């Protein structure tokens, strides 16, 4: 299946381009996708998955055609 993946540059997911389409095995969760990018579970807890403009948990099972935005708030205010 295919999803559109968007993420802030500092996540440094070097094998994909933010905003691009990526191929993914069916049944993968957001957490499994992050594992595949070697993002530690410690860092994963700061990530808020936004799927099709809806907030999801890390155990959300991605669907074909999903737009996944990995939102990570940064400090400063």
């Amino acid at each position, binding site marked *: 299946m295919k999803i559109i993946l968007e993420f*802030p*540059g*500092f996540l440094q997911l070097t094998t994909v381009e933010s905003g691009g389409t990526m191929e993914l095995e069916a049944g993968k969760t957001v957490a499994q996708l992050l594992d595949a990018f070697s993002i530690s579970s410690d860092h994963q807890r*700061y990530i*808020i998955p*936004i799927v099709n*403009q*809806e*907030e999801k948990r890390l155990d959300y099972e991605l669907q074909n055609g999903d737009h996944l*935005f990995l*939102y*990570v*708030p*940064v*400090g*400063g*205010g």
Partner: protein
Amino acid sequence: MDGKIQIMVNGRKVVLDKSLPVAELWNRQAESGTPDITILNGFPMDSMDSAGLICDGDVVVFIRRGVMPSEDEFMSMLTARNSPALQESFKNACVGIAGLGGLGSHVATALARTGVGRLVLVDYDVVEPSNLNRQCYDASDIGRYKADALSESISRFNPFLKFVLHRLELNTENVFSVFADCDVVVEAFDKAEAKAMLVRSFACAPFHSKFLITASGLAGIGSPNEIQTRRLTRNVILCGDMISAAKQGEGLMAPRVMVAAGHQATAVLRILAGRE
């Protein structure tokens, strides 16, 4: 009424024998000079001469130069600035501000100047010397609770705004009750963990009918054009460049902080106006 016309002038009923030019009505109020602003039926006039004759049922507000207006006059002035429909939605709104630092103090100031009717201000902290580079406080505020100092500062230019002040730290336990009466909440925290906590809480049922305006990425002196407003979820809007975290060598500086705060305040007003 035997040809007489009845109008309202600065909140008082006035009966005239016949229709008059607005300038003559001003002169009849025994005022010298010209008013700062003349407002006819909620809209400001370029000049008193441009209005033509007063008609039955007209509502006229003269704002005098050099004199603090009454509450009715002040509200008429805001209505004239914003248009009657917009000002009605701003005046009836309640907006929560979570964190009163660089973002929150500027967002609250902008919303208060625009005419939002009620603000819920939340911050557990006091004003420190290191805040003065970017936050809406004076040296005389150092050591005071930010909620107290900011509400007093705002009252000096909008004495009719209503406040609810909370000097506490927001968490997952109290956030729903603190903002229960708010239509929109502004996330203006400094720490990333606190930002995430508030964003996550807006996916919960008690906040489904409310909006959150969050911010992320506003440090340094990068181009202010990189700070943008985008929709994160149905009820969460994000302002910032999403990248520029505050860190050594890339500190928080007033211009970009104020740009981000301007994005947040504008997003609030657009929601209140039904444009989001």
